[in-house]
């Protein structure tokens, strides 16, 4: 049984078909890249997987259990953790408290949450900012913080929507290393990114979407050289 099953999921906004019978599966332990031109439906898919949007049609199963109709907080508790393309945080809470929210909400004791948060702050080079309100962090630091919050409790599946955007190359390397280590330890991911070198480096398998449909789904190198994929990106450039 796959960890995540996406079966002919469709979603329209007015006349725009953001998702058009999108289907694929993700097995436990996979690190899948999700690419596609702007507006191809990647974020919409993440929003459906995490409960922020309801699909018009189709089904999503997490470990064989349908997730349709579940609220974001329920899905989070089931282990679906995400980041937002437009970073979200708790601006008037300290960096540390931002992480503790996630830890406590997912059932860690206060002590365990603090220990875990300190490890993550250490890993993400945010230790010296831990008592600063998140509202004072830079754009890149916020990305790191939100990224960290996903891993306060190892999620069943991490849905990362453009985690590297606006992040300094050094920190990007740290995040990539973090993802690589987690993946080696069995963590399941969907990684949305426009950063092809990182996708190539991290993801054994990549899915490319265009106009709401999956147009390629195989090993990353094959996807990136697939004429259909190149055409989709060129089409965007030409348009």
């Amino acid at each position, binding site marked *: 049984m796959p960890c995540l099953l996406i079966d002919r999921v469709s979603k329209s906004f007015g006349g725009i078909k953001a998702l058009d019978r999108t289907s694929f599966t993700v097995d436990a332990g996979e690190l899948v890249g999700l690419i596609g031109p702007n507006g191809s439906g990647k974020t919409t898919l993440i929003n459906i997987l995490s409960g922020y949007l309801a699909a018009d049609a189709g089904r999503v199963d997490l470990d064989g259990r349908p997730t349709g109709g579940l609220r*974001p*907080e329920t899905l*989070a508790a089931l282990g679906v953790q995400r980041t937002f393309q437009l970073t*979200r*945080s708790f601006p008037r809470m300290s960096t540390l408290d931002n992480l503790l*929210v*996630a830890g406590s*909400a997912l059932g860690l004791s206060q002590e365990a949450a603090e220990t875990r948060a*300190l490890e993550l702050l250490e890993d993400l080079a945010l230790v010296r900012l831990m008592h600063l309100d998140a509202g004072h962090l830079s754009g890149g630091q916020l990305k790191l913080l939100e990224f960290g919050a996903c891993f306060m409790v190892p999620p069943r599946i991490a849905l990362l929507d453009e985690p590297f955007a606006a992040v300094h190359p050094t920190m990007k390397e740290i995040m990539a290393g973090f993802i690589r280590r987690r993946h080696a330890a069995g963590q399941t991911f969907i990684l949305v990114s426009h950063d092809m070198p990182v996708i190539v480096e991290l993801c054994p398998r990549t899915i490319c979407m265009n106009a709401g449909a999956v147009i390629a789904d195989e090993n990353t190198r094959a996807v990136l050289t697939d004429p259909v994929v190149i055409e989709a990106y060129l089409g965007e450039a030409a348009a």
Partner: protein
Amino acid sequence: MKAEDVQGGTRARMRTELLVSLGILAAVALLPAIVANEYWRGVFIVSMYFAMLAAAWNLLAGYTGQLSLAPAAFGMIGGYVTGLLSYHYNAPPMVGIPAAIVVSGLIGFVLGRIVLRLRGPYLALTTLSFAEIVRLIISNSIEITRGDLGLNVPGIFDHRLAYYYAMLAVLLAVQLGLYFLLRTPAGLYLRAIRDDEIAAASRGVKIVLWKTNAFTLSAAISGLAGALYGHFAQFVSPELGLISQTGIIISMVVIGGLGTLPGPIGAAFLVYIASEFLRGFGGYQLIVFALLVIIFSRFFREGLWGLLRRAFERARARPATAQAAE
């Protein structure tokens, strides 16, 4: 080293806020020793009523980000619950006050459910309509409530000082209760919902549960305050629920510091005492407070408490930098 790191920040700040709150309440406890005038002691008792309402509204607005315009209505509900129970059924305060807490809490729960998906101006307007509807129901149900004539409520104590210290004890309990609540993960959840509800949900915070809890608890505290006030004043009327009363509560919280522990209760005394002094000047008091609210929300978002805290920090930083310079 790490454990201490974690101890700093939010927790240290909250501890300071608790200590300052206790300091304010200690000063209030000593006040009767200086002020023997019964009238002014009465003013302080009413200030404590407002302090409870302010603390309750602060839980909802300051910590949870739900700008309800119904706090005075819940005070009124509490006063009427115990008042009506005693008027119609001769129920003693021992029954009336707990009933006021429960009924206000239940109504708060229902209101919280109704406005669950509303934000900003929609939330404010819905809670305002709710407050006005409740006030109109009370003032028009003349057979039951005597309408605008108001209702006589039996007293509890013979001496004003007894009311004074009873109110103070309850205010202390409320303040301690809020402190201990906010120290638990509940405090994290409420503030997370205030800052970004969508992000809070994505981290697994049970939005429906905690928003409803905040509404229920805030309403219950307000109901308790109203019931105590009713027994002290020995009278309740629909005027308790006027929007102007809500305005006073909001000005107390904003001037004292939204989302801080000592701010609202400290400012409750300052504002109510000031309003007593301004009473002679007619309707100007509300204008003064409205202006202060505008100035504070524009320039001093953390209120008086924020100003004080920063002054402390600067004072503490100065000797340190002086040493460093040597």
